């Protein structure tokens, strides 16, 4: 059994070593040592591709005559590179076994990068190899890949943080720096949460285009679906449709987005409604409903924790607290409706649940106080017994 398996491995290795593709490589790498060093660990090497699959040439020649064939080519423009990549990556038959899409080039042509490259022959924009690398292309889930989620901001930042380059296009060069201060970046870099959004989550990758005002809600809603759904029913949805409001961005910002709290109301609303006491009153009502519920919840949480640590029976109240927390968390989503009336129901439910918790703990503490009251008869009894012992002793003397 062991011998058989060993022979199979050995034979396979021997076959691979003698295969013509590798013989071809052996000749190319005699000169292109550095290229081979980049290529040998790439995803393409792993799938069995060799130099001649992209570059052509004579695999048998061992000097510069190898380049002297008709099919030898070295792409000399980003368009040519894109076409070369697409020769396989747009071929459904070739990509099917790998489960890869074949529309990257089409998508790329719709992107700002693609439009400039193919429309204006602008060689400064990002082509395939700028983001993926050329010889050293790695799979997207490989942590060393330029396209790995945690490496995306750096990859995009190679151009988008370059002030000279960005000034040519009248684009800001601080977007990546801004992103790095955001809550999303905190999740990505500090918590290592690879599902946190990076540049491409909102802007797309091959079809990279900044989402327009109309699409912001869709883009954010990919993750924050509930908030988007509620926002659609808010008065601001209409304003957004009319172009007077930029959906999520107007309040939350974009690249430097921070973890939202109820305090955002203080700074966001006045941007437009500074001179509108009616709307500000409405905001204050919203804030007060949420804050009141949160304060009540925090009090119940603290008191319940104390009671539990003291050793009171609080199993049921733990579940009630969880219920109250559910209401509070719902409030945070529901506030996107911007209608104080809609918050009433969960807020009241949270208050009622908190009141139940408080009532239960009151009851438990009431029982505790009865234990204390029971000390009086106990001491009286013990006192009487002590007197009897003492009298009996006196009597014996």
């Amino acid at each position, binding site marked *: 059994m062991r011998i058989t398996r060993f022979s199979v491995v050995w034979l396979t290795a021997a076959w691979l070593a003698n295969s013509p593709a590798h013989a071809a490589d052996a000749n190319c790498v005699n000169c292109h040592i550095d290229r081979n060093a980049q290529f040998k660990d790439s995803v393409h090497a792993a799938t069995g591709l060799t130099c001649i699959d992209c570059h052509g040439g004579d695999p048998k020649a061992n000097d510069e005559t190898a380049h002297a064939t008709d099919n030898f080519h070295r792409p000399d423009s980003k368009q040519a590179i894109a076409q070369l990549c697409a020769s396989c990556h747009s071929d459904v038959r070739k990509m099917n076994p790998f489960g890869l899409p074949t529309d990257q080039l089409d998508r790329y042509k719709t992107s700002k990068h693609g439009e400039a490259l193919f429309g204006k022959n602008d060689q400064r924009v990002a082509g395939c190899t700028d983001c993926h690398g050329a010889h050293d292309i790695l799979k997207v889930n490989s942590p060393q890949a330029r396209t790995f989620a945690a490496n995306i901001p750096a990859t995009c930042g190679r151009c988008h943080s370059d002030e000279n380059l960005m000034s040519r296009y009248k684009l800001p060069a601080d977007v990546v720096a801004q992103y790095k201060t955001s809550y999303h970046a905190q999740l990505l870099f500090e918590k290592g949460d690879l599902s946190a959004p990076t540049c491409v989550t909102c802007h797309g990758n091959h079809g990279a285009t900044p989402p327009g005002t109309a699409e912001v809600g869709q883009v954010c809603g990919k*993750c924050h679906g509930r908030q988007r759904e509620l926002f659609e029913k808010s008065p601001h949805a209409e304003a957004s449709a009319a172009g007077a409001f930029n959906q999520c961005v107007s309040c939350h910002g974009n690249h430097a987005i921070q973890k939202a709290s109820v305090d955002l109301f203080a700074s966001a609303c006045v941007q437009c409604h500074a001179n509108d006491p009616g709307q500000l009153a409405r905001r204050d009502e919203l804030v007060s409903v949420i804050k009141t519920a949160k304060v009540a919840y925090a009090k119940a949480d603290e008191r319940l924790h104390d009671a539990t640590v003291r050793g009171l029976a609080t*199993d*049921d109240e733990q579940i009630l607290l969880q219920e109250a927390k559910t209401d509070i*968390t719902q409030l945070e989503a529901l506030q996107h409706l911007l209608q104080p009336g809609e918050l009433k129901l969960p807020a009241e439910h949270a208050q009622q649940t908190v009141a139940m918790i408080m009532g239960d703990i009151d009851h438990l503490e009431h029982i505790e106080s009865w234990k204390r009251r029971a000390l009086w008869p106990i001491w009286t009894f013990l006192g009487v017994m002590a007197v009897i012992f003492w009298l009996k002793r006196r009597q014996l003397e």
Partner: protein
Amino acid sequence: MNDDHKISRRTFLDWVLTGGLIAWAAAFLAPVVSYVWPSQKRGPAVQTVSAGKEADFHDWQSKIVAVSGHPVIVVRTPQGFRAFSAICTHLGCIVGWDATRRQIACPCHAGFFDLNGRVVGGPPPRPLTEHGVAVINGEVMVKSA
């Protein structure tokens, strides 16, 4: 009853002393017996909790039960009962049963879980923990972990 006078202080004291000691013993034994008596017919290491009678569930009906201080959602499917921790893995809201979608739904941020606990929609990062559940003598019993 002239003997009343003859009941000396000594005898009276002895009676009180004996009575007191008996009362004392009783006051000692009562808490001990009630402590030893099973207070809920199950001990501290709770293994299973009843979610109710099997007959009270119809297909696709769900119920939230408390299992040692944690909510657990129990759903009856035509293939049998399933039970999952009812605490959403996103922000800890209590999930509920969406009868039309036949999925476990979180009311806070529209997270959805299928009947294997897997996330099928919304922000929850992890599946719900499954609890063992079995019907024993017509009673739906949920395991604590």
